[in-house]
């Protein structure tokens, strides 16, 4: 089963929001790419992800980029060159050739290379009263204003704004059909139901479609995962089609009524003949393949169907004759039923006697109809997230009845949005070859009756003789189209990162994102199992706290060339330091184990690494009592995680149960790793205040890479624990710190990377020699006398989150091990705080974010 990192995938792709309203802003970025990146960065914290929510956000924000937008943001040519042609080609040209559009009909704002980005706001608020869109959705309006301000702040401009609004009665479109529920069931997203996936010819059941058909970087139906060298950009992203489709509702009503009268005349004896309304509904169902309430015509062939409220409203008939349907009870329910029966195939209806071969849904998803083993459709699926725009058709309005548009504002239609991994193989096949042509289904060049791009069209309804419903006007007109890319959150972050020479030091192997997914899943599963009953849920690593002490972090006498970030100017900061043991469960201090310290410096201003922490004022440093790490890269971490977690809770951490798998893991690898691992775990220091701590992995310092060292400068000889027992290290520290007036000091040092060959960034198994680059002191840590064994201090300490990613951009963590740490910290700390029921509050308060956050 696919491992989907829901926190990295933008929302509304895998699960629809189903909100009432939305606004789409087409943005031209500022001339200066740095300013463009700042705008993306400023919007990032507001992006709604695919994570399941307990309560929907009032306003969700998502963003997608055009090809010219990616160019504008400064994506490297070598990466741009790997993007698909369909995405790179000017859409006005592509749509004419591949989609049968007439771009001369388009609104001028579409296909404009100045559109770099489209920002999507969607609001879950209830529809208020009012004539204007803004009055009906005031919260969405405020979010729009906020967004406009941000766009203005960064020298960008909004070229176009499209509002969308659900029609009264829920998920339907202007022709009156229930819409948007027949989506593909995606593997790894657990809400598919029969009829949504791909037909399985052997079992007669349905299987989920592979996630890689929609989310890039994951396995697709062909067993491939696309991206390759553009992996960092494409992983967890999705290609998006945006189409503005104008619908001619008056013409649709006139045409279907006229053709329906002919149809029942030709097909039914006078005594069986459905009345005018039933005839209309029947032909409408033949055209689309579904009755207007969404029921598939294959499941209920009619000819008559229970009329719903929706239908009677549409026909504006005060007294509607109810025809008992062949199945089910009459219903007036117009609410969306997500579990509407969708479980049908076309195998028993090969000539289209029930559902015509050219019916809309049969074209758009031919199910079991195409290819060897009925498998062809599975490679041409799309996830649709369209929303109607414009006022609903009003049968009481003369203008609507006559189809007159006194001014432009009566235009109505559908903003069609769909997601796929490959425009050419998926959307363009569905639109260009299946809807705009009939050859694939043996019906010549017959186009979709509703979507067809030619003025004249027909629908063939099988029979003896066959019946042809004809059409002399277009019912749907494309008013605009864009091909966009909706990146994952990581990719957006990297796209929008400030330019820095440090970035060039990193090299992300193509396998890494998938390996990160594996590690995150294993860690979360393991925590889930292990802490299914016990509380509190502890950290995934370094579970045992010896002490959380308050300290001073004093920056002074820093050499000029190292003045960056926290070390920019002399200052005395307050800090919290947690001393811990590395094992993932609580164990006696009598057992040897690696030791760590995590330093949280308070009151730090400046540009943060994580956009979501813009308003926090802390900087973390994380170090352990060993100078090199025992794994080289994320792929090794994934192997290691498999080795120590493979048997669930009983195999947690390093134990007799996991030892054989660990031996096997190390046997296949560089011997140095096993040696380091052994050395790390065999240490049994008798006083955490008396040992050295290294960062093992590199960090940025301004425009260079450095490693950290924290070294005690006080004398602790003779203070060690006399005996080793469960909490002896805590006891030693308590004894040391409780005497009034004592003070312990550490130097905080940095080691600058000189040569990337001998001092690599991506391999923390390599020791950076201090002959080649000696450590240089940049700060002093001072711990004064205190009593830390207080319950409130314990609680406080347990809820602190430490991660090397909490901090300033100037101290950005580097290398694969740090990148996977980030994903694990994010996932596991969220899980931990969720299970413990304690919300995470970073100490030290927050500054008022500038610019302000999006109003909710």
């Amino acid at each position: 089963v696919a491992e989907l990192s829901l926190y990295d995938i933008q929302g509304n792709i895998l699960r629809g929001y189903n909100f009432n309203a939305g606004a789409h802003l087409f943005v031209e970025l500022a001339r200066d790419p740095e300013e463009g990146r700042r705008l993306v960065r400023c919007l990032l914290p507001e992006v709604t992800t695919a994570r399941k929510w307990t309560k929907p956000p009032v306003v969700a924000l998502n963003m997608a980029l055009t090809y010219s937008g990616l160019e504008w943001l400064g994506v490297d040519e070598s990466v741009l060159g790997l993007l698909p042609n369909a995405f790179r080609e000017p859409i006005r040209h592509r749509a004419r050739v591949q989609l049968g559009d007439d771009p001369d009909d388009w609104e001028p704002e579409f296909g404009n290379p100045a559109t770099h980005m489209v920002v999507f706001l969607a609001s879950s608020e209830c529809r208020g009263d009012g004539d204007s869109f803004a009055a009906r959705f005031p919260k969405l309006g405020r979010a729009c204003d906020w967004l406009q301000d941000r766009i203005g702040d960064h020298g960008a401009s909004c070229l176009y704004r499209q509002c969308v609004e659900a029609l009264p009665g829920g998920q339907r479109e202007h022709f009156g059909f229930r819409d948007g529920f027949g989506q593909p069931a995606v593997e790894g997203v657990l809400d598919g139901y029969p009829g949504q996936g791909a037909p399985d010819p052997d079992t007669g059941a349905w299987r989920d479609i592979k996630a890689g058909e929609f989310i890039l970087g994951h396995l697709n139906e062909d067993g491939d995962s696309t991206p390759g060298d553009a992996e960092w950009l494409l992983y967890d992203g999705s290609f998006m089609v945006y189409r503005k489709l104008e619908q001619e509702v008056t013409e649709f009503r006139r045409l279907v009524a006229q053709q329906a009268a002919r149809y029942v005349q030709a097909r039914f004896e006078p005594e069986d003949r459905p009345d005018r309304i039933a005839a209309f509904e029947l032909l409408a169902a033949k055209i689309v393949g579904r009755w207007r309430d969404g029921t598939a015509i294959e499941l209920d062939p009619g000819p008559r169907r229970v009329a719903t409220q929706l239908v009677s409203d549409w026909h504006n008939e005060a007294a509607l004759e109810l025809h008992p349907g062949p199945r089910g009870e009459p219903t007036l329910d117009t609410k969306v039923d997500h579990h509407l029966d969708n479980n049908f195939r076309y195998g028993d209806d090969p000539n289209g006697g029930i559902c015509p071969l050219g019916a809309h849904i049969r074209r758009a998803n031919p199910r079991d109809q195409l290819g060897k083993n009925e498998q062809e459709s599975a490679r041409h699926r799309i996830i649709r997230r369209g929303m109607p725009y414009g006022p609903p058709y009003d049968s009481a309005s003369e203008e609507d009845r006559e189809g007159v548009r006194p001014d432009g504002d009566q235009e109505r239609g559908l903003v069609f949005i769909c997601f796929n991994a490959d425009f050419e193989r998926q959307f363009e096949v569905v639109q260009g070859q299946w809807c705009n042509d009939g050859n694939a289904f043996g019906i010549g060049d017959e186009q979709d009756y509703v979507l067809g791009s030619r003025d004249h069209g027909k629908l063939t309804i099988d029979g003896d003789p066959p019946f042809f419903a004809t059409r002399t006007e277009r019912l749907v007109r494309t008013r605009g189209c864009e091909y966009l890319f909706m990146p994952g959150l990581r990719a957006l972050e990297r796209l929008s990162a400030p330019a820095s020479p440090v970035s060039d030091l990193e090299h992300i192997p193509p396998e890494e994102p998938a390996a990160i997914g594996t590690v995150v899943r294993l860690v979360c599963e393991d925590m889930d199992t292990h802490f299914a009953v016990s509380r509190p849920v502890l950290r995934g690593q370094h579970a045992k706290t010896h002490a959380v002490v308050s300290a001073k972090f004093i920056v002074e006498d820093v050499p000029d060339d190292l003045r960056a970030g926290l070390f920019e100017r002399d200052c005395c900061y307050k800090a919290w330091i947690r001393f811990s043991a590395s094992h993932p469960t609580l164990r006696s201090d009598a057992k040897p184990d690696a030791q760590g310290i995590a330093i949280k410096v308070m009151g730090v201003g400046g540009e943060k690494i994580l956009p979501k922490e813009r308003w926090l004022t802390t900087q973390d440093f994380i170090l352990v009592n060993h100078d090199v790490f025992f794994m080289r890269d994320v792929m090794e971490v994934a192997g290691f995680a498999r080795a120590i977690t493979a048997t669930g809770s009983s195999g947690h951490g390093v134990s007799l149960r996991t030892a054989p798998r660990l031996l096997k893991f190390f046997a296949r690898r560089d011997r140095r790793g096993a040696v380091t691992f052994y050395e790390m775990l065999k240490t049994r220091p008798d006083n955490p205040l008396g040992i050295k701590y290294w960062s093992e992995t590199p960090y940025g310092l301004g425009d260079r890479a450095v490693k950290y060292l924290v070294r005690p400068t006080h004398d602790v000889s003779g203070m060690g624990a006399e005996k080793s027992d469960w909490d002896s290290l805590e006891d030693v520290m308590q004894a040391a710190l409780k005497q009034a007036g004592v003070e312990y000091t550490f130097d905080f040092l940095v080691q600058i990377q000189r040569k990337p060959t001998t001092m690599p960034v991506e391999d923390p198994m390599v020791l950076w020699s201090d002959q080649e680059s000696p450590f240089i002191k940049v700060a002093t840590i001072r711990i004064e006398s205190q009593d830390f064994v207080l319950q409130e201090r314990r609680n406080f300490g347990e809820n602190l989150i430490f991660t090397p990613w909490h901090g300033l951009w100037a101290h950005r963590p580097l290398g694969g091990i740090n990148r996977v740490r980030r994903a694990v910290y994010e996932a596991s700390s969220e899980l931990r705080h969720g299970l413990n029921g304690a919300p995470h509050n970073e100490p030290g308060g927050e500054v008022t974010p500038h610019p302000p956050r999006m109003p909710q």
Partner: protein
Amino acid sequence: MVGGSLVGRLRHAAGTLLPTDRRGNSYALTLITPIVPGAAPDLRSVLESFGSGKESPLARLEDVHFARWVIVGQLLTDWDGAPKRPSVIESEYLLFSADLTAKAPDAAALPGSFLNQLAEIEESREVWKHCVGFPATGDSDAVAKYLDHGRIQIDLYYAAFPDLTPAEIAHAIKVRRQFADFVLSHQEALSDPSAAQSLRDDYLRESALWPS
């Protein structure tokens, strides 16, 4: 007798029995000719100056379903599963491929008859004069011979309608469309038994006007 591997010999033997570049009256033509060093940019602009679809010079050749010119600069080496020691080509090449169908007796003359036609059109000269060894005289026979020299053997060919020429297919589509139009304009009569005679008359009268 042909030397080489057993597989090679078997393939050769099979090829003499079942031509691999032919299906029915259809022929798969592939020509590869080296481009004169440095001439590729000029060649590219010549190719770009041609129209596509009905405007293409190739549209005048009646045996052609599909045809194209491709400039092969260098072989790609970075695809998934690429060989460890990829082949490198010494020169840039012009690739020309075409799907051809001729009427029954003429089909046996493929590809020679087609190469003669190809050699006749002015655009061919403009294209292939950028290739190594193009005959200086430029007379049609010499050009046809030159083109044939660049022809390579095709080992697998599939044609959906191997016996239908492009003109026949275009004609069939036209008739189908006309027939559909006829049906659409006589729908009511289709389900009315009393109208059968007039329907028949109409059909005979109208279909006589369709292209034959």
